[in-house]
C-alpha cells in the first residue's frame, strides 16, 4: 500500500489531528469544543464560512458532521457545538482539553451572509437544532453596522429545552435587535410568549421587501413556518434553511444525504427555500 501524499491533489478522506483547547458547557449533554489543528500549516491555510461544517473524528470510533460556529475571521480556533446523541459524540464527550480529535473539512455551502448585507435578518430556530445559526448570529453581531434590523425567533417545547439562555440575553442587548422566545409547555418561570414558534412568525413586525430569513430546526417547523413568511410577502428566494441528513463522507460521494436531486453535504446544508420547496414534507425523501 502507498502512503505518499500528493500535495497537488489533497486526499479528501484524510483526517487531520486537532487539539481540544477548550470545552465550553452549553447545556446538559451539549458542549462547545474549541479545536486547533496540530499542524501549523493546516492552521494557517484553513478558511471557512458560517454554516459550513467539519467532519469531526474520534480515534477508533468514527466521524460526525458538525457545524463550525466560531468566527471565520479567526480560523485558527474552531468551535464545534456537539450534543451527545450517538457513539462518536459519546466518545468525544469523554475527552478533555489537551486531547486530540480529528478534523476534515470545511464542507458544504453556508449562510448567504454577504447577500444579507444591508437587509433585515430574521433568524428562526426551534428545538435543539440551534447550533448552525449561532455562528451566523455571532457573525452578524460582530459586524452589526453592515446589517439592518435583527429578529431572533426561537421556540422550545419546555423552558428546560432553552439552551444558550445567556446568549439570548446577550443578543437582546444589541441595537435594533429583537429576541422573541416561545414555549408551548411553559412552567411558572416562563416570562415569554406561550405557544408554538410559528405563532411568532405571525406576530413579528417585518418589512418583507427588505428581509431575509435564516432558519434551522425541525423540518416540520420549516414546512409549517415558511408559508407564513411567504404569505407576509417574503419571497421564497429570500428564505434559507439549514437542513440535516445522515452523512458519512461530507464530499458528495457516500450517497446518504440526498434530498431529491441534492446532496446536502455539498449542495447544502444551507439551501434556498425555492430550491427545496417541493421536497420538504414528502415522505421518505
Amino acid at each position: 500500500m502507498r502512503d505518499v501524499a500528493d500535495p497537488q491533489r489533497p486526499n479528501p478522506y484524510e483526517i487531520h489531528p486537532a487539539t481540544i483547547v477548550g470545552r465550553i458547557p452549553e447545556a446538559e449533554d451539549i458542549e462547545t469544543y474549541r479545536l486547533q489543528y496540530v499542524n501549523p500549516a493546516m492552521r494557517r491555510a484553513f478558511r471557512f464560512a458560517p454554516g459550513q461544517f467539519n467532519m469531526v473524528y474520534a480515534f477508533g470510533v468514527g466521524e460526525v458532521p458538525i457545524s463550525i460556529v466560531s468566527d471565520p475571521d479567526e480560523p485558527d480556533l474552531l468551535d464545534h457545538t456537539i450534543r451527545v446523541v450517538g457513539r462518536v459524540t459519546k466518545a468525544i464527550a469523554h475527552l478533555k482539553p489537551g486531547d486530540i480529535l480529528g478534523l476534515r473539512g470545511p464542507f458544504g455551502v453556508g449562510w448567504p451572509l454577504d447577500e444579507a448585507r444591508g437587509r433585515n435578518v430574521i433568524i428562526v430556530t426551534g428545538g435543539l437544532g440551534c447550533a448552525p445559526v449561532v455562528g451566523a448570529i455571532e457573525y452578524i453581531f460582530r459586524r452589526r453596522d453592515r446589517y439592518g434590523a435583527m429578529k431572533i425567533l426561537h421556540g422550545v417545547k419546555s423552558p428546560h429545552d432553552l439552551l444558550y439562555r445567556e446568549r439570548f440575553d446577550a443578543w437582546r442587548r444589541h441595537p435594533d435587535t429583537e429576541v422573541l422566545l416561545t414555549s408551548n409547555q411553559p412552567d411558572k418561570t416562563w416570562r415569554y410568549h406561550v405557544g408554538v414558534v410559528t405563532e411568532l412568525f405571525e406576530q413579528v413586525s417585518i418589512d418583507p421587501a427588505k428581509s431575509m430569513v435564516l432558519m434551522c430546526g425541525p423540518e416540520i417547523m420549516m414546512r409549517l413556518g415558511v408559508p407564513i413568511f411567504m404569505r407576509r410577502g417574503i419571497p421564497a428566494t429570500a428564505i434559507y434553511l439549514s437542513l440535516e441528513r445522515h452523512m458519512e463522507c461530507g464530499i458528495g460521494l457516500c450517497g446518504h444525504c440526498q434530498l431529491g436531486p441534492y446532496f446536502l453535504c455539498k449542495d447544502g446544508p444551507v439551501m434556498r427555500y425555492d430550491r427545496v420547496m417541493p421536497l420538504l414534507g414528502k415522505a421518505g425523501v
Partner: protein
Amino acid sequence: MKDKPIIDQPPVLLVKSSFQRLIDLLHKKGYRVLGPALRDGAVLWDTIRQVSDLPVGWRDVQEPGRYRLEETGSHDIFSVVHGPQSLKPLTFAPREPLLQIERTKDGFSVRPALPDEEKVAVLGARACDLAGLAIQDHIFLKGAYRDPYYEARRKGLLVIAVNCTRALATCLCASMETGPRATSRFDLVLTELDDSFLIEAGSEVGRELLAELSLTVASKRLVEEATHRIDACARSQVRRVDRSRLPQALYDAHEHPRWDVVAARCLACGNCTMVCPTCFCHRAEEPADLTQQYSEHLRLWDSCFTQEHGYIHGKNIRPTTKDRYRMWLTHKLASWVDQFGTSGCVGCGRCITWCPVGIDLTEELPVLLTQDRT
C-alpha cells in the same frame, strides 16, 4: 456523457484457436488478467492464465430471481453474458481501508492507505459494464472532490470488452442506449464469431497491443456478420424502459399506490444495489482494536435499503421498505439524471436477476407512470 466513437481502424481477425496469444501478450506486458470464471454456479472475475480458465462451452440463463449456467457443448468462449459482478468491484472496492490511524504519545497519526497502482487487464467486460464504468468515473473523478482510491485502481485498469451477440431475458441495454455494442472506455473490443474474433482498438494502449499481435484485417463478410449478430442481439431484447417522460413522471409518481404493492414483495435485502454497476453509496467503519493503539478507517459499500442509511439521531428519514424501494428507483431513474446528466440505469438487468423475489423495474415502472392509479 456520451463519448465520441474511439475506433479509427478496421477490425482485425484472431482465430479462436489462437486466443491464448492475447492472454499471453497481456501477461508479457505485466498485466494480471481477470476474466469470467465459473464459481459457485455463476461467473465471477478471477485470474485467467489460459483459455480453459474461461467459461468455454457454458452459457447463462437469467430471469427475474433466477440465474442458471448451462453447458452448450460449443467452443464459444464468451457465451456467459455476465455474473453478479460488473466492473464496479475492480475500481470501487467493496471494502477497503482509507486511513490507518495510530495512537502516538501526543494523540494520533494518520496515514492514507492508497492502493498500489497495479496493472490489471479485465477480459470480457460488456457494454453495460462500460456504461457503468463511465458513470462511476464521472462520480468519483469528475466531481468537486476526486477520490484517490478509485483513481489508483482505475489508472491501472486495461479493459478488453466483448460485444454482446446474445441477449438474456433480463437485458435492456438497447432501450437504455448503452449496448449491446461497446462504444467507449475500452482498450480492445472483441466480437466473437463461430471460429474467430474480430478485434478493434479503442485506445493507444489497445492499438499497441494489436500491433504486437500483427493480425490481418478482417474480411468484409465477417465484419458484416459481426454487425448482424450485434444488431440481432439488440432486437431480441424483450425488456425495455421508456424514458420519454423521465425524470419528471417518476417524481410525480411519489404517492402512487404501486409502491405499496412492490414494498409488500421487497425484502429490503439490498442485492439490487450490490449488483448494480452504478450504485455508489458507501459508509465508514472502524473495527474495534483491542489494544486501542491502532485503528483502520474503512470504507464499505452501503445500500439505501438498510435501516441505517437514512438514520439521523433518533429519526429515520426512510423507515419503511416502501420508502427505500421508492428512494432507490427514483434515484436510479430520476434524480440521477438531475445529479449526473444520465440515467443511473445502464440496462444490465442484474437487479432483476439477483432480486430474490424477482422484482423487475421494467414491470414496475410502466405501472408507476400510469396516471390511472387503480
